[in-house]
């Protein structure tokens, strides 16, 4: 592993996010503090409406906090940028471009200034091969399955060689089998690229299987970080072996305890 691990590669300090709504101000996040080391895989977990995606949007720079500051590599996150790639929940591929063109758009943006066209194309081909989609490169998103679309989304994010990979419930809309397959692929890819990953999820197994650190959030409004659980399971991880390991079950139990005992979700009736 890297010997000079920066323990605060991403540093979230006292972040508060208040949305102005028609019914008055709505405080989504309050007093959020988190440090993420370089190369760490962090899962954000919590009930729906707890501000996980709000926090991810802040990290992506798509929104700005009303209070506090977010740092990435000691620089304030001022807006979105290709060094923090996002994989969106609904893949967000452009339907009029082929898979290749969707990825190429990102590759071109990041590397066109320094590399030749042939090199850009080779990069695109390589990253599509990495997610196993070489055969579908010339297809449009409408012609491939949901799992494949999400893989193109991941390929697009990875193609930019981002410092940080932000995943917003990337497998939420997929069936269980496809999801497991993509999780395994993601584990493999992250192991190879050593990226820093922050992933929003509400799947306990996914969080334990993939992450080094599970950030559990309290219920909104005014959600904050309730607890941070370090997952010390050896890598590479194998879902079949893990299913029986006591460590895995311990972490799983810890997350479930937090979510369903201490933060039992009370669904508020709103019109």
């Amino acid at each position, binding site marked *: 592993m890297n010997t000079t691990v920066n323990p605060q590669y991403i540093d979230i300090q006292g972040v508060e996010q208040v949305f102005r709504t028609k019914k008055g101000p709505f405080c989504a996040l309050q007093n959020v503090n988190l440090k993420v080391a370089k190369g760490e895989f962090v899962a954000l977990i919590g009930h729906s409406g707890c501000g996980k995606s709000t926090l991810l949007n802040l990290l992506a720079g798509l929104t700005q906090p009303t209070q506090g500051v977010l740092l990435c590599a000691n620089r304030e996150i001022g807006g979105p940028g290709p060094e923090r790639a*996002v994989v969106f929940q609904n893949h967000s591929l452009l339907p009029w471009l082929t898979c290749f063109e969707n990825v190429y758009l990102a590759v071109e943006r990041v590397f066109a200034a320094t590399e030749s066209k042939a090199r850009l194309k080779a990069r695109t081909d390589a990253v599509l091969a990495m997610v196993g989609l070489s055969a579908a490169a010339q297809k449009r998103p409408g012609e491939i399955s949901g799992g494949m679309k999400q893989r193109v989304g991941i390929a697009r994010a990875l193609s930019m060689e981002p410092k940080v990979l932000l995943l917003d419930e990337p497998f939420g809309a997929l069936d269980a089998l496809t999801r497991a397959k993509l999780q395994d692929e993601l584990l493999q890819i992250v192991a190879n690229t050593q990226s820093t990953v922050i992933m929003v999820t509400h799947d306990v197994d996914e969080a334990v299987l993939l992450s080094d650190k599970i950030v559990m959030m309290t219920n909104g409004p005014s959600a904050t970080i309730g607890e941070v659980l370090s997952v010390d399971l050896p890598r590479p991880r194998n879902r079949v072996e893990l299913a029986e390991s006591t460590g895995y079950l311990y972490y799983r139990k810890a997350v479930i305890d937090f979510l369903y005992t201490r933060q039992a979700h009370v669904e508020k009736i709103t019109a």
Partner: protein
Amino acid sequence: MVSAVFHSPRETVPQAASGAERSATHSIAGNAGAISAKPEKHLKNAATTRPPRDFSAPWMRVLPPLLGLALLAVLWEVVSIATKASIPSPKDTFLQAVVLFSDPFYRNGPNDQGVGWNVLSSLKRVAMGFGLAAIVGIPVGFLIGRFTFLSHMFNPLISLMRPVSPLAWLPIGLLVFKGADPAAIWTIFICSIWPMIINTAVGVQRVPQDYMNVARVLNLSEWKIVTKILFPSVLPYMLTGVRLAVGTAWLVIVAAEMLTGGVGIGFWVWDEWNNLNVKNIIIAIFVIGIVGLMLEYTLIKLATAFTFEEVKN
């Protein structure tokens, strides 16, 4: 439950059983029945009902439109007889059409030209007026869609102008351009521009936020945003605008040409009315209809070719 007792003897056998059992036996029996019955049924269907349906399907598609046309011909014939042939019969009109279309591109002076020239010069006016409307309307639509300020500024104006019949603008055109031809083009321009502006603006306003987020995360240049995201996602809306505009333009050109004169299908109708040549008027009506249909069909094909599935959540 109790009511089951009063059912016919055949039904009481399964229904007399208790609720859970009954439904269980029912479903099992039902399944077994379905499994054993289905293949036979399918075979029967395949053997008896399928082949005739295969034959009738294309017939059913061709027959109703043919019947419709036949009905039109019959009504027409009746009207023709009732008016003592002052409305010419379908047969006479058809014979006249054969004569007319055997030489569509003759020229005997400015007021006596073949039907082909008339249609072409009308199409040329529509193309010019419409083309100008597209050149002005699409960028204006983009601006109005992109900036709320402009949208608030121009919406009242558009609402005020849009319901006005484009022919009301014809005198203004004649006054300003001092010529029949540019005035007709001006009228087409006015009637085509509203659907272009409105549909483009709506398209821009409805670009999914997801795509814009992608643009922001990838940090795309303004040029890439316009060419790779805005333009393709607005294109289907724009083509709807184009279709509406061309449809209206084709309606308006006939009326405009009747007023302005010169060469054109609208003028031709009026000219044949002055000649009291009703056969040619009826032929002109068909020509106008067929050309309009072809324009519409082409644009619908074009629109479907550029429509892509949206991101669904």
